């Protein structure tokens, strides 16, 4: 469960940490709590997993990882855990999810991979296929970015 204070902290933190010497004091002042209380509550939210990571969200293209591909795998039901575990060990994989299938779409394991160029993403997919023994997969490169934003929670 999430408290009203924690919701207020989420709203404040998604505006970004101010670039002043005492950023937590600045935020705490707006919420009407002490700097210490704010820091303690953020730490608690982090330890409970409400905050997955505290720090900078970066645009990976700027860091030299210019190509990314969504690789979708068709994995037999009994093998999903093994494949998901294997793929997650690969440092080029940033996200790995098992997903429901729907309609004609029967690929159930999704991995996002990042590379210096499309060829490297293809090579990573080939290597993942070799290691896992899974041969049915699609490498879907993005051909256009239409929206990419951070979620804004509790705005209503």
């Amino acid at each position, binding site marked *: 469960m999430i408290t009203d204070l924690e919701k207020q902290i989420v709203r404040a*933190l998604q505006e970004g940490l101010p670039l002043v010497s005492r950023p937590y004091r600045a935020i705490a002042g707006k919420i009407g709590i002490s700097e210490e209380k704010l820091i303690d509550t953020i730490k608690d939210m982090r330890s409970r997993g409400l905050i997955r990571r505290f720090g900078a969200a970066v645009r990976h293209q700027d860091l030299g990882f210019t190509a990314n591909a969504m690789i979708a795998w068709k994995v037999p039901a009994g093998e999903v855990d093994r494949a998901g575990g294997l793929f997650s060990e690969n440092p080029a994989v940033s*996200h790995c999810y098992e997903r429901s299938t729907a309609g004609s779409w029967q690929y159930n394991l999704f991995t996002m991979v990042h590379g210096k160029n499309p060829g490297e993403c293809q090579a990573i997919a080939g290597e993942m296929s070799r290691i896992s023994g899974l041969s049915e997969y699609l490498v879907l490169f993005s051909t*256009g970015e*239409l929206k990419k934003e951070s979620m804004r929670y509790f705005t209503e």
Partner: protein
Amino acid sequence: MELGNLDRELLNIIQSDFPLTAEPYKNLAESLGTSEEEVLASLKRLIEAGTIRRLGGIFDSRRLGYTGTLCAMNVPQEKVALAASVVNSFPGVTHNYLRDHDYNMWFTLLVQDKGEISRVTKEISNRTGIDEIISLPAVKLFKIRVNFDLTEG
């Protein structure tokens, strides 16, 4: 933007270990052997250039009570602009990409109430005239978001 040494060192640390202390920028400066002013100037540049998308908390949407899904639809070329504007108008849509497949538009959707997913996809169908939108909610999460290591240059 061109990243300097301080930028790289800072990014390596603050992707996961931003100090939760009264004077975090000063503490970062101390551990990197520089001044608080230099750290603040570097962060300001990185934020203005968009390299840092946001400085703060990265939240677990599910633990905040939100439900997410990945949706895909087959959009004819002449409707791409319309569909993009309709899909992007929902605040819960955070990522939307064109991809090279019959299902050529892929977007993520976060909502507070699970029932809202079908409400949103129905509205997108109504406003675009595209009947089929597949929703592929996550069944199991194996891995999410690594930090990018910049020490290799």
